[in-house]
Every structure is written in C-alpha cells, then in structure tokens.
C-alpha cells in the first residue's frame, strides 16, 4: 500500500479531527490568500483606473506637494503644441475647482467639485450612465452640465432639468451670480469617490461660473500617446515642449504610488502572509505530532511487519499534504468571499475613488498560494516524520502491550 493510500485511510478513519484540521487550514489559508491579493491589489487597481480614461500621460504645473495646485498657463497653446507632436494621439485640458450647486427642487446647496474639460478631446474623462456627454454649447441656450451620480441623487436632478452652479462654497459668501446649466447626462467619474459630488462642464462654462474673464489656465493636461510609439516617447516629447512642467506616464505614477502610498498595505500583506503561513505550519505540525504520538504503537507495528522508514515518512508527508492541500483548495472560495468583505471595509476610507479596490484577483496569487502551502506541508511534516522514523520498534511495541 502506498504512502498516499495509508494517509488517506488515516484521514478517513478519524473524520472529526480531519474535518476540523481542514477547516482550520482553510480559514487561515483563506486569510493568507487574501494577503497575497492585497499585496498587489491596490497597485493593479490603480493602474487600471488610470488607464481607464484612455489617457496615458499626465501634464501638471507642479509636483511634490499635491495639496498645492500649480496651474499651467497658456494651456490652449500648450495643448495645441502637444496635439501636433507625432507621438501624441489625443489631448484634453482639465480645470478643477470647488463650487456650490443647487438643484431644480428647493433644497440646500451642495459643495461640488467642478471639472472643466476641453470638448475637442476624443475621450471624455467620465462614463455616461444616463443621457449623453457634453455637447458644444449653443448660443443663447443654457450651458450643458454632466452630473456625477451622487450629485444627481443629492440634487434630485435628471437629464433635461436645470441646475445652478455658483463660484465659492455653499455658505453664500460669493458675490458672483449663479449660472443656470441644463443637465445633459449623468456619469461615473473614475477618479472620484462614491460619495464625492462632481459635475463636469465645458471650459467656457467653467470660466463663466468663475466670473468670466480670459484666463487660459489648466490644472491638468491629459495626453493619449500614439499607439505606435507608446507613453514613454510621448512623455519625453511633451516634457521637451515646455521646461518646468511635470510630465508623468501612467506607469511612472503607478511606480511612484508603489514606492509611497502603497507601502503600508504591501508591508501589512507581507507581515500577515508570513504570520499566517507560520501559524498554519505550526498548527499542522502540532496536530500531526499529537496524532503520531497517539499512533506510536500502530507505526511500530507497521515497521515490524516490514514497512520501511521511507514508507512511514511518505505516509506522514501525505497526511500533511492532504490536510494542507484540501484546506488550501477550500480556502480559495472562502478567500474570495472574505476578500470582498475586507475590501468593503477598507473602501470605507474617505475620498477613495469608487473604482479603486484593495483586493484584486490575479493568477499569480493562486500560484504563490499553492507554493506557500506546499512549503508549509513539507515543513509541518518534518518533526512528526523525524519522530516516527526514529521510533525504536521493539520497546515501543512492548510499551504498548504493557500499557
């Protein structure tokens, strides 16, 4: 009889302990699996989110201190120059400010992040869920606005209705008049949090809400590189256009995020993965050791009838592999459910973009999970195997008979 068959029979003979051990391994391995998902989840999600809008290069007026905004001057001329570059496929200018918005029904004004976007770009930086995207505004008609889902719900506004946008916050301190805008669509803004109140208008309307004037500034210029050259060449070409600008490819931003913002979760994942793997190893080793101690007579009898040391060692290794293997397999669906629950908890952090997730599945995590469990099974079986193969046959059998 092979070592695997002996191990399988042992597992079947003691169903309660086998089930409990498998359950314990499954729960802890599920946590371990989740930590593997967490180790790169935020990074994958961030990269996906940045690439989602279709732009792979970002141009900013300043870097290093995100709280302080450095507007880009002569933004229209810069955008035209960028568009003429052979490495570039599309360009969008973006302006951002805090304004207040009032809905068609009576109710409190809402503090809103207003996005002003150039309409000559091929890719809008939002995904329309109802109505349509921003058209070019007609002379004499109210300017158009696209509302984020949360803002549309807060104002009770739908496509076709009028909302009023006013510079300044909602405490009524701005002297600028409110601008009535017609809602043309409701959209998801990929970089905004689920609770954020966001609206998008054309750059002209944005300027009108700010009180008019001839400001030609942008807070951000988004660039889509030409597919045949890629973002690195586009980044270099844009950076050469105007010294002093901060030009980043999405990959560079992800790398920066990996070095800074993501460090906490990566290290937490490393610490918890190590802890849970050690925990699983220790507990399986304890269970196997107690089980071997309980079966000393049985093992001595097997050795006495000619079963080799290697065979006994193989049996114990298989026992460990069965417990850890079955537990590890059960851990995958449990880990999936647990990851969703943990993701929901972490996504309660304020101002987190709606599309950002902490736990993201990738095949690499399953391969790592399997490798970790295989190593755990081998290490956990080492001590019980050492006990079993060094067992003196005759004294053990005598002790069993006497007891």
């Amino acid at each position, binding site marked *: 009889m092979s070592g695997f068959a002996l191990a399988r029979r042992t597992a079947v003979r*003691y169903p*309660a*302990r086998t089930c*409990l*051990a498998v*359950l*314990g391994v499954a*729960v*802890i391995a*599920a*946590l371990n699996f989740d930590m593997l998902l967490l180790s790169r989840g935020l990074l994958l999600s961030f990269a996906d989110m940045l690439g989602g809008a279709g732009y792979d290069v970002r141009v900013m007026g300043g*870097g*290093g*201190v995100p709280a*302080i905004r450095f507007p880009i001057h002569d933004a229209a001329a810069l955008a035209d120059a960028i568009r003429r570059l052979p490495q570039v496929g599309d360009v969008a200018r973006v302006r951002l400010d805090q304004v207040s918005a009032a809905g068609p029904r009576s109710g409190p004004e809402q503090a809103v992040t207003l996005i002003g976007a150039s309409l000559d770009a091929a890719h809008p930086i939002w995904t329309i869920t109802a109505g349509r995207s921003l058209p070019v505004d007609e002379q004499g008609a109210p300017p158009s606005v696209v509302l984020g889902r949360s803002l549309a719900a807060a104002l009770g506004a739908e496509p076709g209705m009028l909302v009023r946008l006013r510079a*300044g*916050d909602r*405490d009524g*301190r701005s002297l600028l008049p409110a601008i009535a805008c017609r809602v043309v669509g409701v959209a998801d803004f990929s970089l905004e949090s689920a609770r954020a109140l966001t609206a998008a208008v054309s750059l002209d309307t944005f300027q009108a809400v700010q009180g008019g004037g001839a400001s030609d500034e942008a807070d951000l210029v988004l660039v889509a590189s030409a597919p045949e050259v890629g973002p690195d060449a586009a980044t270099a070409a844009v950076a050469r256009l105007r010294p*002093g600008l901060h030009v980043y490819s999405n990959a560079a931003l992800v790398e*920066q995020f990996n*070095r*800074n*913002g993501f*460090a*906490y979760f990566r*290290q937490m994942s490393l*610490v*918890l993965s190590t802890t*849970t793997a050690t*925990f699983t190893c220790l*507990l399986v080793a*304890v*269970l196997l050791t*107690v*089980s071997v101690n*309980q079966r000393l007579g049985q093992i001595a009898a097997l050795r006495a009838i000619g079963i080799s040391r290697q065979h006994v060692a193989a049996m114990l290794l298989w026992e460990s592999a069965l417990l850890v293997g079955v537990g590890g397999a059960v851990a995958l669906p449990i880990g999936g459910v*647990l990851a969703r*629950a*943990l993701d929901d*908890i*972490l*996504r*309660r*952090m*304020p101002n987190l973009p709606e599309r950002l997730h902490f736990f993201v599945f990738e095949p690499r995590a399953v391969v790592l999970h399997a490798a970790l469990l295989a190593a755990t099974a081998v290490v956990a079986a080492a001590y019980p195997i050492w006990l079993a193969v060094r067992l003196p046959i005759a004294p053990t059998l005598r002790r069993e008979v006497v007891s």
Partner: protein
Amino acid sequence: MASWKELLLALALVGPFTSAGPVAAADAPQAGAPADILISRQLMRDAHLGVGAVVVLATDAEGTRTARFRVAGVYEPVPDPMKFNVKRFEARLHLPDLVALTADPGDPQALESVTAINVALVDPAAAARVAADVSRRSMGVTVRPVARARDDDPFAALDGFHKAIAAVTVVGSTAFLLALMVIRAEERREMVGMLRLVGVPSGSIVRAILIEGLVVAVAGAAFGVALGVAGQYGINRFFQARYDTPLLFVRVTASIAIRCLAVAVPVGVLTGAVASWTLLRRPPTEVMGR
C-alpha cells in the same frame, strides 16, 4: 516621491558648516545677517547640514527667487500617521521671512496673505459653532474644525480591517483547538470509559475537560500577548528605522490584552464542551471499544 530638492522650497547649501551651538529660532537677526530657520532632523542629516550653516532657500529649482538663512537649530517633525511614508524634509521660518520670500511682487496684498490660521478654542466642543460664526463674518475664508467625524477618518476603516482579520484568525484558531481537543479526547477514551464504569459522575469528567480546554486557550492567549509585547519592540524599531519616524506602529495595551483573554475563555469552554461531548454521548463500554 519628490526628493527634497523638488519640494516647494528648494534648498541649497552655500556656506561652510560651523560648530556654533543651537540658537533659538526666535532670536532677532542682526541687520544684514541671514535670518534664522529651523531644519527638520531628516533634512539636517540628509543634506549634511549643521547648526550655524548658512543656506539659500529658493522658491523653485531654478533659483529665481532666493534668500539666505542661518540654521539656528534642528527639530523633530510632529509624528503624523498620514505622512509616515513621506520623507519629512522641512524647514520652519518666521512667518515674515516666508512671506517675503514667497509673496508675489505684483500682488500688493500678497505681503498680507497667509495660507491658514490655526485657532485653539477655550472650549473645543464649540468648534462647529465657532466655525459657523467666523464663516458667516468672513468673505472668502473657509473655516473647518480639525476634529474628524468617524466617517471621515481613514484610521476607522483600518481599525475595522484589523478587527476583521482578528476575527478570522480566532475562527481558524478555534477550529485548530477543537481538532487538538478531539485528538486528546480520543487518546483518553479508555481511561474515561473506565472512570465512568467505576462510577465517576459525567459532570466531573466534563468539568475536567472544560478546564483543560480553558487552560490551553488562556495559556495560548497569554503566550500570544507576551509574544505581542515582545514583538512590538522589534516591529516598532524596524518600521521606525524604515520610515525614519518616531511613530509607534504597534502598541499592546491593557485593553487589547484583556480583550484577547476575554475571547480565549469562551473558545476554551466551547472546545472543551465539544471534546467532552464526543466522550459522553456514547455508553462507557462503547467508548472503550468493547
């Protein structure tokens, strides 16, 4: 991360180090002498500065607007969990010096402008009312209490995450302890069967097994707390060195230790009860395998 050279205030060392002792930043500079500034410990170390050194601060990397300052001392930035992975390359200037360096010469109001005013209230509970009052009276000023509501606190979510992980670990540990207790119960089947046959009441056997489960769980929890207490020193030292911060990353408090033991007690009782049930649900002869 932007290097310190790329920060808002680019810094360049122009003078040799001197061996002068610490000088209070509030000391009034002599006429024509560079004004005093304080430099964060991290910047002092990485820029190889010393107290008394004369440095040039510039508003941009090209050095279009600059001013000379003398390093009067070094300070430890206030530990901030939101900035634990940010290099704290910072300098503290007297407000007039900073305004003179950074104010837009074309804006006559720039010399009278500040970014923020911090206010400490006599009664912190009145923060919302005071904020509303000041807000009503001041055009163009945003007034916010600094205290965060629980919904806006990122650490509340992290706290929930850690608790969820702890709960999952408890479930896994309970399964393992149950398996261990069941194995121990099987080991003692014959002895328990004999005890029952000679008239030892089932209640005594149950109590013995419950106490065993309880002792294992509580001893395990106590060992875990001791391990945590011992480990926190190493973890804190590692992360403090890694991020160059005096922040505490792990702290085992009395409340945590008590909670740990409070969870261990029901787990021990539960596993003991299940183990004793496996021995007492059948007649003694059957338990003995006869």
